[in-house]
């Protein structure tokens, strides 16, 4: 880990925190507003790669646990790790790592389509696979019901996967971080 790696990790932890104050986007016909924060999770993996992206999200979660209100809606502190959405916070960590890993794997031929697939797999499939059992465990409801309750968020997450993929492809062209020889700059 070079100093530059540490700086990148800290910057993406901060970036994901700042995304909590992005203007929420509401899709027509859907009651659920989309907050940008899980976009930060996808970007951390997709721009920094598996190791640095995962560490960036871990760093953010450590600061949240210390009592900084860095999650959307000004939430923070230890109680968020006991609430029903705590599974999704763990899911963020795994999703950032998974997206980073896949992005590194498919880096050479990365296109908008493959980047979108990566973000959907990591940011939706992996995230919900961890988040939904979390809801079920904390709230004491069966998995199927927890799943039904989460379905409303999936369209918003697809929009975020598309945005994240577009950013990943743009960054690859203009300012690539993954695939550099180590210790450059």
């Amino acid at each position, binding site marked *: 880990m*070079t100093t530059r790696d540490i700086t990148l990790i800290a910057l993406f932890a901060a970036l994901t925190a700042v995304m909590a104050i992005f203007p929420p986007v509401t899709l027509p016909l859907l009651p659920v507003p989309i907050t*940008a924060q899980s976009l930060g999770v996808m970007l951390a993996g997709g721009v920094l790669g598996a190791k640095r992206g995962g560490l960036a999200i871990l760093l953010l979660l450590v600061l949240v646990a*210390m*009592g900084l209100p860095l999650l959307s809606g000004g939430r*923070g502190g230890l109680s968020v790790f006991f609430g029903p959405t705590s599974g999704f916070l763990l899911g963020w960590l795994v999703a950032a790592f998974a997206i980073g890993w896949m992005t590194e794997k498919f880096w050479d031929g990365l296109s908008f389509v493959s980047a979108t697939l990566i973000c959907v797999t990591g940011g939706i499939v992996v995230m919900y696979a961890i988040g939904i059992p979390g809801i079920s465990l904390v709230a004491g*409801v*069966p998995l199927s019901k927890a799943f039904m309750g989460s379905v409303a968020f999936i369209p918003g997450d697809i929009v975020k996967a598309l945005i994240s993929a577009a950013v990943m492809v743009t960054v690859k062209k203009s300012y690539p971080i993954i695939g550099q020889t180590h210790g450059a700059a």
Partner: protein
Amino acid sequence: MLTDLYISGDSPLHRARPAWKLVLLFLFCTLLFVVTHPVMLAIGLVTIALGYAVAGLGPRAAYTAIRPAFFVLAIIFAAQLWLETLWLAIYVTLRLFALLMAAALVTYTTRASEFTEGLLALLSRAPSWVPKAKIALAISLVWRFIPMIRAQFDEVREAQRARGLDRNMLALVVPLVVRTLKTADEVAEAITARSLD
């Protein structure tokens, strides 16, 4: 600026070591989950009420703690009522309420800087393969970067508003990410120039 959720005070709970508070919180939550008996829950709720009283936190602080979770608690109550019995719905909801209140109590009575100090103290005793200096650097950098990126985000949003694009997520995110990556290079160079590496 970046502020934590700490509410100042001088109670025994405020003065206790963060590590002890964390251990107690962990024990409390485990007990509530392992011993599924209404008496245990009642004891837990009374303990929390006492804790808030000792810390000098009024109903206002307690309400602030639970307000973000209110909606979720209501949904859980409704789901339980629909799937199980009224009795179980009350039990599960109250238990979650107790967990959230207990965790919030620790957060309210502990400064983020105290947690940082505790973490660093823990790190100083960690085995040598743990990159202590790098972890400390990363934590202190985030403290500095959050207000900075927030300011950059405001700049980007102002610029895109002039173009009528301030509701367009892509137009906000791309410049912000590229700026962030440029900042990383500059900051890393500055740190290396001061030979911290």
